[in-house]
């Protein structure tokens, strides 16, 4: 989902060590180093920024508030975290990560060659995670200049596989985050009235998230006929009686994202189109229930795909359904479109099931997080799967 990314992540900024303890982070470091060793990599360079921080955060538990950060993970020795902050800001940000050595980003390229020498890995292959994908070109070039003689290997693919299944420490946080999203949605229903402007409604939802400890919050809120064409950030449009409102709400809590999407009809007469939307809701319910691991899940997802196709043809709707990984990034691996032959799911995956539908009078959006378990998916939201009415 394309949202309006903020210039600064500015909600509650803390590291709750009871929720993500140091032992969890040590476990991750062990996993990373096992892979590095198997691939002959001496040092791993991991990049992240305030926009996409999952890779960096997985190793460091740090998510940049603004701009970027880079971690160096040697095969042996202590990792170092470089942040694009002023030196006076480092002491506060040091409290947000378990990495003991935190310093400013400009020092990275100055001392990189010396670090490699000290770790005894000069000339060894250097792994790169999220570097070619998202690191600014000038920074990449500066790193390249300091690592002449070493092969730079893209490592994002295997690294992200480590993040694919959520650990027992992560799951409670995902559930807590989803609980906040449920509350935000209830607040949307409470405030939604004809005459309210879209941005005023979004402001109330954003407040509910931040006041409950969200680190960040992104909202797409579209009303009226615009819902038939796209999802977009809230504008200054007044919401009219009888109109539809589509809401996508994503929030991060203690680094972990969750999301919730629903379609709401604002009072007014029950129009013919609403009957189509009721059918869309049932289709969404069927899709959510079909998500499961292994072969059984595949066959029920194939059934859901055929139901989606029939729905599209019957109503001439442009509908799509995607299972999208969510966690340390708002969108992460895996990304599985519903199809006759979808990729199999594995217990421990945390996915958002998104249904997007466009068409005259029948625009709709639904999404919610699902935790893939051994026998199917665990539904985390308490927000019911139905077409909501606000009066």
């Amino acid at each position, binding site marked *: 989902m394309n949202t309006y990314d903020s210039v600064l992540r500015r*909600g*509650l900024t803390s590291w709750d060590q009871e929720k993500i303890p140091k032992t969890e982070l040590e476990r991750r470091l062990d996993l990373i180093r096992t892979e590095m060793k198997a691939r002959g990599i001496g040092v791993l360079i991991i990049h992240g920024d305030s926009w996409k921080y999952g890779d960096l955060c997985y190793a460091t538990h740090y998510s940049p508030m603004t701009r970027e950060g880079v971690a160096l993970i040697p095969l042996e020795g202590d990792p170092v975290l470089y942040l694009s902050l002023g030196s006076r800001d480092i002491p506060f940000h040091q409290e947000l990560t378990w990495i003991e050595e935190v310093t400013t980003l400009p020092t990275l390229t100055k001392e990189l060659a010396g670090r490699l020498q000290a770790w005894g890995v000069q000339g060894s292959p250097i792994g790169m995670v999220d570097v*070619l994908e998202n690191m*600014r*070109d000038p920074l990449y070039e500066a790193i390249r200049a300091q690592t002449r003689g070493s092969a730079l290997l893209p490592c994002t693919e295997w690294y992200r596989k480590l993040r694919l299944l959520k650990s027992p420490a992560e799951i409670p946080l995902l559930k807590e985050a989803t609980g906040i999203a449920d509350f935000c949605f209830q607040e949307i229903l409470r405030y939604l009235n004809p005459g309210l402007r879209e*941005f005023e409604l979004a*402001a109330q939802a954003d*407040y509910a998230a931040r006041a409950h*400890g969200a680190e960040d919050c992104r909202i797409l809120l579209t009303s009226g006929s615009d819902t038939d064409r796209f999802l977009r950030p809230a504008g200054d449009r007044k919401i009219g009686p009888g109109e539809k409102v589509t809401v996508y709400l994503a929030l991060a809590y203690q680094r972990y994202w969750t999301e919730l999407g629903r379609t709401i009809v604002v009072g007014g007469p029950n129009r013919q189109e609403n009957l189509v939307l009721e059918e869309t809701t049932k289709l969404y319910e069927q899709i959510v229930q079909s998500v499961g691991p292994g072969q059984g899940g595949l066959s029920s997802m194939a059934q859901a795909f055929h139901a989606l196709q029939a729905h599209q043809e019957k109503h001439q709707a442009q509908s799509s359904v995607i299972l999208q990984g969510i966690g340390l990034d708002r969108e992460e691996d895996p990304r599985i479109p519903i199809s006759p032959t979808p990729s199999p799911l594995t217990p421990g995956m945390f996915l958002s099931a998104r249904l997007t539908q466009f068409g005259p009078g029948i625009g709709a959006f639904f999404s919610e997080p699902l935790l893939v378990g051994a026998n199917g998916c665990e539904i985390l939201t308490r927000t019911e799967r139905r077409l909501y009415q606000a009066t």
Partner: protein
Amino acid sequence: MNDDLFAECQDRLKRTWLAMEEKDFDFLLVYAGGKREMQRMDGVRYLTGYSGLGDHSLLLVRKQEMPILYVNPPDAADIAKEEAALGEVVGEEDFVPRAVHDLKARKPGNGRIGFVGQEFMPAGLFQKLSGQITGSLCVDHDFLKRVGRSKTPWEIERIQRAHRMADAGFLHMVEVAKPGMREFELSAELERALRMQGARDNFGLVASSKHNPAIRPPTDKKLETGDLIIAEISPECDGYFAQLCRTIVLGEPSEILREKFELLKVALRKGIQAARPGAPAVEVARAINRILEEAGYEAYCKPPYMRSRGHGLGQGSPFPGNLSEEDGVVLEEGMTFIIHPNQYIPETGYLMLGETCEVTQNGGKSFSSLAQDIFSTHGI
């Protein structure tokens, strides 16, 4: 898109064409990602009005022709078409081949292609693009900063609106701050106050302590009587930011606090007075530093305590430059800056005072309606 924005973007495009003539650029490529930072200027938004909801966007500017905007992912094109005031919009998963094709079709030959935004472009994407372009790619980080260094009345109006949001948001904080409330709850109150006025974004930091070492994001610390709440509030209106820096004391300010805050008040007045056309930016920084140095705080006017006494503000903060002893920018009428003599003082901790100003013939013109003073939950 509205008519005002269309006219504004047309004017910017004309100025861009002139600047291309000066630099001998046949074409200009402008890159912007969906990542938003105060510290960068979004050149695509500046020239088209598109707020950049997708992952990447690239603008191909041709002299005396409408530009072409390439966006990714493809569904971002629907919104780009709604928002962009000028030019054709192309939405493609990988827009590089199409952009290169369009460029070649216009026969750049060995012509010069200006490139803006390389400093923000992901390495992989830049390598892909630069590897396919024929002609001489001239990276020019400052090209649009020069074009847009002085603000138009349309831009000034947005910055003023954003400042009114900041002022009102701050007054709301003063009203609701109370002992026992947590920092992030106060910050949420501020956010709501800004968003209810239409702010789409905010570079906002709120911290509290009896002795703040610096400003930082909000934590779960509870506010206590006697705390100093420091706030940097920077709401966005139509892509334009204004910034307000202020200090609130939770209770009655002490004598020593009043005395030290007086230094910041005088420093702010001196800084604003110095912001005249023709003056180098360094003069504003010196006018502020002089007051604090004379009071014995010279050591605290340098890093790591202080970096600059303000910076450009409008569409982000990078241009026209910083108000620091190192910056070489010369002030011009219509430039806008946040002037902030924020200062760490050993006796009180970090204090904040600052507001956004426009450079005029009579010195800086502040956009804030608030008293240039320390605020208290018991009144100024």
